[in-house]
């Protein structure tokens, strides 16, 4: 039997030691007295080779050959080969949550370094050890703001990822929390900052925005953040970490809580997970932050070491009054993000961001030269932008698949007034030739 070392002789010896004649008797003595289930729908076991062959065949049915221009918060970035090796050390991935610090200094130091990386990227002073994903992180930010302000309303920009907004709506449904979404006009891609501020009242706990926003648009938030603060609310920003290599940081713009989806930091797309939620906050809010936190301290000899800290916020101590129910988080994904940032490095990260932005700019220029394609919204974007097609974008995307391209995300799926609009993402992986071929294919699909 794979993975189970006990032989029949071992079992016999152990049964004798516990004074049972058989496994059946052991079940009886352990209070399991119902007959065993038939399990008719569980197949017989397979050999490692058979399992691998079967999964290879399933993997081959997935269209990973398409040239990808779909992003929408989840991006096809390069991952240095060394990242897999570094995180693939089984002392990391076969360990549990580092409750015993003396036996987990590797994980603990790595998480401290990860927290440091998130702080440096966002220009925020404190980060936690990870949350599940960008969407749950944003919801946790609302709950934090509710605890801090004692108010129960969240104002959410319509330019925040609709995927995240759907999740927030689901989580809030039993919690007496009012969600107010401030829509964005279909001809625009900015976050309607004026309307956002107007929506803030003395009941508002927080305002949620995204940077760059879901349409790829990059906006200055400093003044709006000030106005949000003046009304006593917390300013929350969900960010795309790769973009922060180049952009003015959320910390510089005064945000109180910064969250985000960390998939772009070396984590494979892997059909939706596991991903990485991150959260960084201003110092005075740290005790209201959910999730694990690693701190640096000293041991009995005064030697520096790392330990899980501020645990009194967490579920195992505070139970129903905890800051969140989160227990297992996405530790290995946080380690992956650190490994990625370590390999890519300071210079490399800026280079990745520059490549993305330049290639997206190039792609947009080419696409806008095609008859019938029009720009939508603001000019400043990072690596993702909206164009208007001369027809239903979801249909056109379907036709582009036949040409070998995942051409972008049709916005009509989430915004009924944007049926002809397409959200196109370009990463450093796309070559000049691919981008030109993409524009050519688009022209062919539209006009021939």
């Amino acid at each position, binding site marked *: 039997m794979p*993975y*189970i*070392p006990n032989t029949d002789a071992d079992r016999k010896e152990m*049964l004798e030691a*516990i004074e049972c004649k058989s496994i059946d008797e*052991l079940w009886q003595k*352990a*209070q*399991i007295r*119902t007959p065993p*289930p038939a399990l008719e729908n*569980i197949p017989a076991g397979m050999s*490692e080779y058979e*399992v*691998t062959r079967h*999964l290879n065949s399933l993997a081959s049915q*997935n*269209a990973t050959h398409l040239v990808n221009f*779909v992003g929408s918060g*989840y991006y096809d970035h390069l991952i*240095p080969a060394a990242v897999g090796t570094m995180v693939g*050390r089984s*002392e*990391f991935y076969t*360990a*549990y949550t580092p409750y015993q610090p*003396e036996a987990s*200094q590797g994980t603990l130091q*790595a998480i*401290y370094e990860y927290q*440091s990386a998130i*702080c440096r990227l966002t220009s925020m002073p404190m*980060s936690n050890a990870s949350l599940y*994903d960008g969407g749950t992180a944003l919801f946790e930010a609302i709950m934090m703001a509710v605890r801090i302000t004692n108010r129960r309303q969240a104002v959410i920009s319509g330019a925040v990822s609709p*995927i995240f907004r759907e999740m927030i709506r689901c*989580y809030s449904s*039993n919690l007496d929390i009012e969600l107010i979404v401030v829509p964005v006009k279909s001809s625009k891609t900015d976050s309607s900052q004026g309307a956002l501020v107007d929506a803030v009242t003395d009941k508002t706990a927080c305002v949620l925005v995204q940077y760059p926003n879901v349409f790829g648009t990059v906006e*200055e938030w400093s003044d709006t953040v000030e106005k949000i603060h003046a009304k006593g609310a917390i300013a929350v920003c969900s960010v795309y970490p790769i973009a922060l*290599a180049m952009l003015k940081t959320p910390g510089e713009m005064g945000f109180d809580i910064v969250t985000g989806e960390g998939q772009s930091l070396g984590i*494979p797309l*892997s059909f939706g*997970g596991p991903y990485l939620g991150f959260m960084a906050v201003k110092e005075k809010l740290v005790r209201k932050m959910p999730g*694990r936190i690693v*701190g*640096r301290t000293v*041991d009995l000899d005064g*030697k520096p070491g790392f330990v899980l800290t501020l645990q009194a916020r967490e*579920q*195992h101590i505070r139970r*129903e009054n905890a800051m*969140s*129910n989160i227990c297992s988080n996405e530790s290995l994904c946080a380690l992956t993000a650190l490994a990625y940032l*370590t390999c890519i*490095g300071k210079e*490399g990260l800026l280079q990745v961001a520059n*490549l993305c*932005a330049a290639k997206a700019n190039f792609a947009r220029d080419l696409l806008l030269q095609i008859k019938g394609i029009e720009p939508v919204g603001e000019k400043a974007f990072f690596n993702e932008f909206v164009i208007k097609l001369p027809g239903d974008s979801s249909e056109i*995307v379907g036709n582009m698949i036949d040409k070998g391209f995942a051409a972008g*995300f049709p916005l009509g799926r989430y915004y009924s007034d944007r049926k002809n609009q397409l959200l196109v993402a370009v990463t450093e992986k796309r070559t*000049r030739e691919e981008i030109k071929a993409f524009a050519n294919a688009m022209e062919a699909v539209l006009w021939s």
Partner: protein
Amino acid sequence: MELIYSKGKSGRRGSSLPKLDVPDANSIPSSLRRKKAAQMPEVSELEAVRHFTLLSRKNMGVDSNFYPLGSCTMKYNPKVNEKIAAMPGFADLHPLLPQLRRGGALTQGALAVIYETERMLSELLGFSQTTMQPLAGAHGELTGVMLIAAYHKAHGDTKRKIMLIPDAAHGTNPASAAMAGFDTVTIPSDPDGNVDLDALKKELNENVAGIMLTCPNTLGMFDKNVKEICELIHKAGALAYCDGANFNAIIGRLRPGDIGFDVMHVNLHKTFSTPHGAGGPGSGPVGVCEKLVPYLPVSCVAKRSDGTYALEYHHKESIGYIAPFYGNFGIILRAYAYLLTLGKEGLVRVSENAVLNANYIRAKLIPYYDQQHPGYCMHECVFSATRQSEKGVHALDIAKALIDRGIHPPTIYFPLIVKEALMIEPTETESIEDINKFIQVMIDIAKLADENPEAIKQCPLTTPIKRLDETQAARKLDLASLE
């Protein structure tokens, strides 16, 4: 060990990137650019790899150490599963592809994995359907109690705001219930460690939405009244939630759906061999009985009559989206490979050997450690270091002594209802030789605690650091190395 940020030097890098092959132009005005580059490490690839390798050596993991951490099911993580999760056909798959027109055809292999794993889990749990979406065990709990809330709401039963939780429960249970909007009421345990039935009966009324019961319980025992508890709960119009953190004890032998539970989560990173990853990523699928199926989160993977798979998004009564896509797919994939490898007869052997190993340890350690709740256990045995603590040696000290002896400690001080708890879970993947070594070490420590308690209170001595000043860590927060 130095932080990665103190290593290397300005201008050094560990990666090569494609050259810029388009004009160096973009649309970001200088006012929206960051003033100073983020201070990421500046090291060569070797320096990066060596840093991580050295860090990894300061960890204990299942691959290097016996790891009997109770309630965490630290079983072996099969290597073939890691290879499968890294297959480009899975790892490079964008989650939004199925949402494109004709996109369903682009991800049939991945959808098959989710669907087939879901079917097998439903069969093993004894439920109608299972959602693969929850991203961890606690996330599964939250999903489960949200389903209970949705069920009562759909039946106009809006008064039901109370969730009953035994005092032996893991802290995630009350925290999850609170996140789903419930008030919690604690039910005490009886002297055997089971739910106190009389106390339960007193709390049952028309305001009770449900109960969250860990089964087998957190003492590693099967509460013989489980069936009766479910019946009492149902009679009161409430629903029974099973916390399946301990499912490894009964997999293949008993189906919680068959004994009256309405909804439960399991942890793929426990029973189904996916790695714990030093604190995630996990996966916490939730199985439900027929009457809760309409409320399951979207999307759901369905199998069409032509054998193809499709995602369904529009379930009218669904609680909505608890995850951005389809769950932690990479973890589901590993669990799927595990299920296929073991098959029916293998899965039955899992629980048999897990329970046998735990009882063997229990029998061998009884002379040396006290038990607050004696009797045959399931997959883990709980001891109490009360005898040792009379000599000043507490559960924490025993844990540290084990570290010095190359063994990861059991879970300590949980469940809270046991004094000086030591919760030992060997799992089925440990050999009798290694189990015997562990037993001998535990006996040696017990003897040392009696003869020379000071020697244990000094532990650990062999680790990279000694015991840490956790008070200073919490008082003088140092959570990041800033620039």
